[in-house]
């Protein structure tokens, strides 16, 4: 029996939905804004704007002081964790969508030949 292939698109969407649209300690709008900012979107009117931008661009340069400011502003470590993974997810899904788009373009062109 052939092995069942993973449904990567479905798994990516399930992760996106849970982190950005599901319930959490932080509100959905905060998480969505972090995900968009980390994927090149608009600045956030919050003290942690530089942090979520940096998670997208150069996460290895994030400092402890930036994370402490985030915890202070969102009110708890759990809420801060949600914002951090939302930003990381935004950057990762930008890459997922960009790559799948070019793969689909080639696959569609081949199917049309």
């Amino acid at each position, binding site marked *: 029996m052939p*092995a*069942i*292939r*993973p*449904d*990567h698109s479905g*798994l*990516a969407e*399930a*992760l996106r939905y*849970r*982190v950005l649209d*599901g319930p*959490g300690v932080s509100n959905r709008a905060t998480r969505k804004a972090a995900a968009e900012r*980390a994927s*090149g979107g608009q600045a956030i009117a919050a003290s942690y704007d530089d*942090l979520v931008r940096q*998670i*997208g661009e*150069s*996460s*290895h340069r*994030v400092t*402890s002081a930036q*994370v*402490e400011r985030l*915890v202070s502003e969102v009110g708890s*470590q*759990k809420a*801060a*964790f*949600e914002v*951090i*993974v939302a*930003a*990381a*997810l935004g*950057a*990762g*899904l*930008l*890459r*997922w969508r*960009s*790559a*799948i*788009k*070019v*793969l689909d*373009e*080639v*696959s569609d*062109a081949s199917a049309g030949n």
Partner: protein
Amino acid sequence: MRLQEIDRGDSIVSHLFISFISLVSRMRLPDAARVALYHKDFFSVPMGEWTQAAMRGSSEWSVGERELMAALVAKWNSSSFCVRAHGAVSAKELERSTVDAALADYHAAPISERLKVALEFLETMTLRPTELTSKHAKAVLAAGVSAEALKDAIAVGAVFNIVTRYANTLDFAIPTADEFHRAATMLLKRGYGS
């Protein structure tokens, strides 16, 4: 670890589990595993499911090749923890010298041409995602990589563009080489599901 709640566990059960595993394994439970135990329903369950599918699901890429892809994505994102963690797993499946050569310069490493072109795609995807065009995908397919295999490689790349970012942001502690080696054995045995 920059969030103390992750370090100690967010429930008595998690705290006891972290303490117990650290005691019996005679090493500090790595921060990646602590994140997997934290706020599980919110993140680590769906993240673990995609990671397990990408790294251990059915694919034309071997486990060692996918772990090498993960290690290189980590290198491009400057995540020391993930480079060492996934380099160690890959080295258990491929030769350690092969992994080291690929981490130094994958173009010159003794790996297959199809893996090299997939890595070229993943490098652009990681560092310059908006520059990806159909030419990049065509180059991979022209080297004999199937569309399904390229999608599998993209999934590995996407997952580790997420993992490396929170690993860096949370400042994962770096275990010793021996501890990475032992953790790699566990990752091969148990996989990534939460």
